[in-house]
């Protein structure tokens, strides 16, 4: 009985901590919104972050998108062949990429690359008193450090998703048409017939939401780092794990609302 009570107590505390953390992230979001619209716009900082989050992520996004499209075509072909429906491979790859895998995988890759870097960079700034230095110089750290990262992520994630979608479909085309010898005309025709622009747009809205999530969580974890090098490491790991889980959970709810 005591054990059950202790376990319930521990679970309760963990849940309270999670709720408290979510509340703090929400407050950070509100602060980001308020500072976004307060001039001056730190355009140089935003462009720098757009380069880091967007341009420098292209390579991993191209690789991930291409191979995901290829493996989807391969798996889909074996499944559809049982019903002699191989012609649906192209549209399946395209639907899967635009609606789900494009935004989700891109966001997970950017979380691993840029979200972790945000947490590590802000965490290092916290433990080396650079964030305190901003306060001392009467400069708001949210405006200087967090707003540019959030804006850059929200803008760049949809663009990276377009790249991922395109490369995924191209990968699927290569495997389907050139390796598995599906008729090229039918492959393309089914894509145009079954995939709507709405599928693409909704995927891009999802990507923007995921960009918001990964940047907010990365910045929150970094900004609230405590301790030295160990604290920075912990903040970085927590940022990636927490952001990835939140992206996957919110993906379900966004899908339920949109499609």
């Amino acid at each position, binding site marked *: 009985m005591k054990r059950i009570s202790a376990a319930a107590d521990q679970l309760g505390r963990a849940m309270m901590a999670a709720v408290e953390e979510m509340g703090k992230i929400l407050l950070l979001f509100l602060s980001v919104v308020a500072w976004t619209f307060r001039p001056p716009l730190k355009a140089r900082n935003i462009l720098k972050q757009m380069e880091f989050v967007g341009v420098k992520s292209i390579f991993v996004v191209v690789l991930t998108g291409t191979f995901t499209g290829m493996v989807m075509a391969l798996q889909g072909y074996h499944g559809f062949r049982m019903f002699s429906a191989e012609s649906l491979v192209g549209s399946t790859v395209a639907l899967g990429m635009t609606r789900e895998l494009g935004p989700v995988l891109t966001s997970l890759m950017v979380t691993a690359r840029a979200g972790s870097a945000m947490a590590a960079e802000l965490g*290092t*700034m916290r433990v*080396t*008193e*650079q964030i*305190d230095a901003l306060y*001392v110089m*009467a*400069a708001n750290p949210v405006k200087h450090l967090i707003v540019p990262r959030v804006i850059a992520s929200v803008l760049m994630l949809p663009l990276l998703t377009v790249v991922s979608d395109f490369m995924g479909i191209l990968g699927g085309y290569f495997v389907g048409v050139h390796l598995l010898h599906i008729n090229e005309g039918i492959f393309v025709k089914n894509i145009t017939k079954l995939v709507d622009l709405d599928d693409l747009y909704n995927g891009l809205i999802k990507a923007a939401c995921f960009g918001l999530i990964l940047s907010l969580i990365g910045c929150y974890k970094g900004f609230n780092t405590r301790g030295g090098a160990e604290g920075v490491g912990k903040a970085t790991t927590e940022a990636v794990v927490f952001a990835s889980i939140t992206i996957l959970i919110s993906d379900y709810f966004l899908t339920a609302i949109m499609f």
Partner: protein
Amino acid sequence: MIRLVDIHKSFGKQKVLDGLNLDIEDGKTTVIIGRSGGGKSVLLKHIIGLMKPDSGQVLVDGVDMTRLNDRDLNEIRKRFGMLFQEAALFDSMTVGENVAFPLREHGKMKEEEIWQIVADRLRSVGLSGVEEKMPSELSGGMKKRVGLARAIAMRPEIVLFDEPTTGLDPVMTEAINQLIMDTQKNFNLTCVVISHDIESIFRIGHRIAMLYEGKIIEHGTPEEIRASIDPVMVQFLSGSVEGPIVIM
């Protein structure tokens, strides 16, 4: 004048400041000494509003910093500069951009004027021509000097120094001490310095305050501090392990 009145601050069960009172005179250098982990940095962070006390007042020319909203606090902070223990230079910016940061943030100056001031402040800390270097290319002493140049960029009235000579060799320690004295004199600053370095405190301090167990137990001129018969003060200045200060 900065006046700290009955400041209490605890972290969990640990009392760090326990009814601390201290007056810091204008245009003078006040050095706060005390044991490592004894709350000196916490005290400094209270003076600039980075931390709020559990109770008590931090009065800057009669204005209570603890009751100000963010906007008013920022207005008062413009009168301050601070040199952090590890200088806290922004890694992503060049030395010049670091020193220019507060000028860009608050002044409505043209770039040309800003760079003139940057060059002037760097010259005053003996580091001309390093504007394009990154902080990672500088030695510890150079970083502290750049930190000081940034702290005085806006010509503040009050500059806080958090252990400015910790980790430096004796020659660089003396150079930084000299720089603090020259800067204080040239800019007529009110300086608050936290230090462990006994030689340094008597060189640079017009007033010395000893923080012990959350309170200021001695406060006076270097001569008065040297002549103190308080056993804690005597033990601290002599660096003896025997005495009322318990080693943990």
